[in-house]
């Protein structure tokens, strides 16, 4: 069977065109990605983000049929919007449906920041103000302060994928200050993965992204070392001894 080493059940907002592409691009031999879509519209309004929690259950029923080793709820705002308890509820619901451990992007975001020991980080998002405020609150609830936040300020979630990797690179570089310990690029629709390595080299500090952090937790949950060497230090760490245990520990605590 394809995915003999690990099958990832990936739930994406229906408009998302980036995450399944990036997950496939980094999948090593023996790992397969099986996608289901969370029904919804283009605009990331509070109502739309809240509806995703319910709509994700049907997508989980569909992807659960491939007997996945891990399920990824691939949306940052759709998992942090109503806070940590809501995120936890999503995890529990999807695990009950699929019988697999669930990773959410918001959970992965705080887990990677906590694993890095970061207390103060800069964040880049495509979100509008109400969503950015919710992100800050979610991070704060996990002991992480958002020092500076840079945004592309776009409500249309489909259009987030039109932002080019070089524009993300420029945004991160211009907004971050030496004051922060790391940078997180939120939103699984942003094509950040391919510039993370360059940003880390050029800024001299860790730079994470939503897709990357989700993949980090997913591979850790499957106990698979994907040997991904060109998508930032976080994924490279999966190839170090005992790294899986660290990621799994934070999966449970976040």
């Amino acid at each position, binding site marked *: *069977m394809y995915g003999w080493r690990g099958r990832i059940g990936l739930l994406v907002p229906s408009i998302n065109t980036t995450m399944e592409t990036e997950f496939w691009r980094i999948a090593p031999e023996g790992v397969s990605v099986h996608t289901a879509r969370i029904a919804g519209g283009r605009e990331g309004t509070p109502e739309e983000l809240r509806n995703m929690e319910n709509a994700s259950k049907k997508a989980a029923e569909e992807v659960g049929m491939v007997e996945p080793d891990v399920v990824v709820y691939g949306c940052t705002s759709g998992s942090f919007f109503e806070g940590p308890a809501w995120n936890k509820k999503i995890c529990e619901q999807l695990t009950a449906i699929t019988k697999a451990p669930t990773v959410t992007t918001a959970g992965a975001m705080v887990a990677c920041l906590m694993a890095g020991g970061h207390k103060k980080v800069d964040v880049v998002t495509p979100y509008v103000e109400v969503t950015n405020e919710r992100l800050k609150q979610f991070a704060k609830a996990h002991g992480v302060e958002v020092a500076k936040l840079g945004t592309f300020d776009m409500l249309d979630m489909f259009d987030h994928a039109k932002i080019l990797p070089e524009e993300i690179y420029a945004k991160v570089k211009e907004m971050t200050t030496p004051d922060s310990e790391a940078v997180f690029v939120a939103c699984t629709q942003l094509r950040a993965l391919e510039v993370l390595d360059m940003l880390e080299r050029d800024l001299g500090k860790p730079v994470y992204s939503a897709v990357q952090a989700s993949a980090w937790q997913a591979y850790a949950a499957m106990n698979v070392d994907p040997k991904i060497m060109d998508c930032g230090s976080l994924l490279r760490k999966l190839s170090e001894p005992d790294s899986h245990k660290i990621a799994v520990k934070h999966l449970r605590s976040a």
Partner: protein
Amino acid sequence: MSRIGLLVPSSNTTVEPEFYRALPNEVTLHVARLHLSQIATDSIAGMVSDIEQRSRDLATADVDVIVLGAAAPSFLKGLGYDREMAKKIEAASGKRATTTSTALVEALKHLGVSRVVLGAAYDDKVNAIAKNFLEVNGFNVLAAHGLGLVDNLVVGRLDASSAYDLARKIDRPDAEAIVLACTNWKTMDVIERLERELNKPVLSTTQVSIWAALRAIGRVEGVPGYGRLLRDLAAPSKQTQLA
């Protein structure tokens, strides 16, 4: 950049990886799933109950074409059922659509083939429907053999050698081509070898679906490694030449 939308039976573990592997880098794949566990007629008929919603979901990702990447769910009710499904998808999504079974008919016509042998993962009941679908579309099915499987997850666990072995077993000199049916059955890795050894086109339902998707987005550069159909995307149709 082009985007292909693919509707996949929920328990199918094969068609998604095989599409990804064959597609060029500039083409991305976006998947939605439809509930299916058993390859049995009632289960297959029920699979399409969500087809409009899931087609609309793919339309929100602004895909250029939507492919119903499932053989039995697009041939289940005989002549024209495949096009009926495509029309349903188009009406719901506003996007162009095709199906695996439509692609199979088009690919056989494209190659100018009329006499085939059919190998499938299915049980006799579903395989008889597959055979009938090809016959009412004008093809002569000289022989049809199925592996007798109903549980779709079990089909996904088969090794590609099962497709190779069945193709070798059913081939006969008067068959102009071999058809391997079921998009959850690993076939892509044995097509090239079979064509070399048997010296005739080998069509699999996954391969023809990829072919139809690439043609729908106007792709002319071929994809090597999966038989002559995908290798020669720009090749003129045999049928067109005759006409």
